[in-house]
């Protein structure tokens, strides 16, 4: 008999070593997540994957599954908590979607749609952050960085490089580049690297491709985040839906 946990009353099998998120994804159960991407080590920083395990709030992407856990996932209360987290992510950065190349393909935005977010609720921080356009094919717009460290992990764990890190504290916390000048052009990143493509928001972008697919026909204009994440669509680039 395989071991099981219960998510919203449904029995979900798991193997030792799997997290609650791993087990849920394998069973086609969507738990919202932002800093987690299957294949990279879990980070547990965004807290969007918060679930209720036997009465305690835990991050499902880092919490090991263990026999008999009673887990609440899709509840109105957790939806509200997750929406508040998303609102905080929006107001802490400069997320002006109408002028963002990533709009429609952005995981943060898609999660906001999924949680029926209509406004940022909190006062805007409007932090001042820098753009790094030094690289011939890539651009960093720190206004939109949510500090999820997916690029940091992709570079270290998959690309075998060490291009990115997060440094500083509080509102000064930001993405830094491992190169003598601190500029992306002087790092050893290449366009084909996973780190160049993994950013869930519009903070690391491939130059010259931002508007190949028109707004209104992009991934999350046509699909919900729950569908695409369960299909493990790694959003390297929008599939062309016009075909």
């Amino acid at each position: 008999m395989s071991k099981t946990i219960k998510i919203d009353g449904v029995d979900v099998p798991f193997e030792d070593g799997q997290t609650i998120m791993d087990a849920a994804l394998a069973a086609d159960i969507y738990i919202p997540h932002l800093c987690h991407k299957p294949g990279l080590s879990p980070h547990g920083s965004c807290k969007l994957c918060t679930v209720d395990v036997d009465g305690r709030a835990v991050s499902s992407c880092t919490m090991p599954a263990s026999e008999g856990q009673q887990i609440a996932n899709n509840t109105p209360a957790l939806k509200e908590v997750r929406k508040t987290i998303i609102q905080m992510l929006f107001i802490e950065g400069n997320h002006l979607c109408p002028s963002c190349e990533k709009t429609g393909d952005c995981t943060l935005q898609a999660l906001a749609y999924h949680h029926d977010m209509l406004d940022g609720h909190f006062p805007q921080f409007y932090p001042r952050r820098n753009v790094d356009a030094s690289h011939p094919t890539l651009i960093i717009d720190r206004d939109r960085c949510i500090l999820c460290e997916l690029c940091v992990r992709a570079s270290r764990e998959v690309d075998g490089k060490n291009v990115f890190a997060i440094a500083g504290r509080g509102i000064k916390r930001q993405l830094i580049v491992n190169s003598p000048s601190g500029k992306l052009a002087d790092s050893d990143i290449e366009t084909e690297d996973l780190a160049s493509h993994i950013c869930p928001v519009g903070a690391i972008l491939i130059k010259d491709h931002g508007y190949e697919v028109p707004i209104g026909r992009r991934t999350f204009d046509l699909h919900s985040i729950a569908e695409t994440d369960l299909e493990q669509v790694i959003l390297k680039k929008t599939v062309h839906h016009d075909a």
Partner: protein
Amino acid sequence: MRKVRVATTSLAGCFGCHMSFLDMDERLVGLLEHIEFSRSPINDIKHCEPCDIGLVEGALCNADNVHVLREFRQNCKILIAVGACAINGGVPAMRNHFTLEECLNEAFLDEIGVDNPHIPNDVEIPLLLSKVHPLHEVVHVDYYLPGCPPPADAFVKIITDLLEGKEPSLPREILHYD
């Protein structure tokens, strides 16, 4: 039966939300059976009378914007922030990366091709705020209608819901921020 009175205005916006409102085309005729307009750029009435619904497009970038917004809040039972700028500052808030002085210098003194460089200071011109702000930072906002602009269907939906006495909700197909 008394018609539901609606006021609309554009603050630091581009009137795109108003254009999108008018995009409801012939549905506007049906809607006018139930609503009438108070202050609005559509009829050019200059001040807001007591109203049921106020639709406010645009962010707050100058003292007049704040004044108009307060007039709306005082007069409208239900205030709706319409569009990206009203909700989070939108494109006008991109100037928040710079000081006001830098913005004015760039636009009126240093920009290539500026003729007779001077910063306009006519008393009629409303004073600029040092930063652009969304509406909810100054007054209480009852409902939000996101989009840049919100689609005509979203206007129809929120107004119809309110006319029917329902809590407004936007189906996913017409909820977008771009």
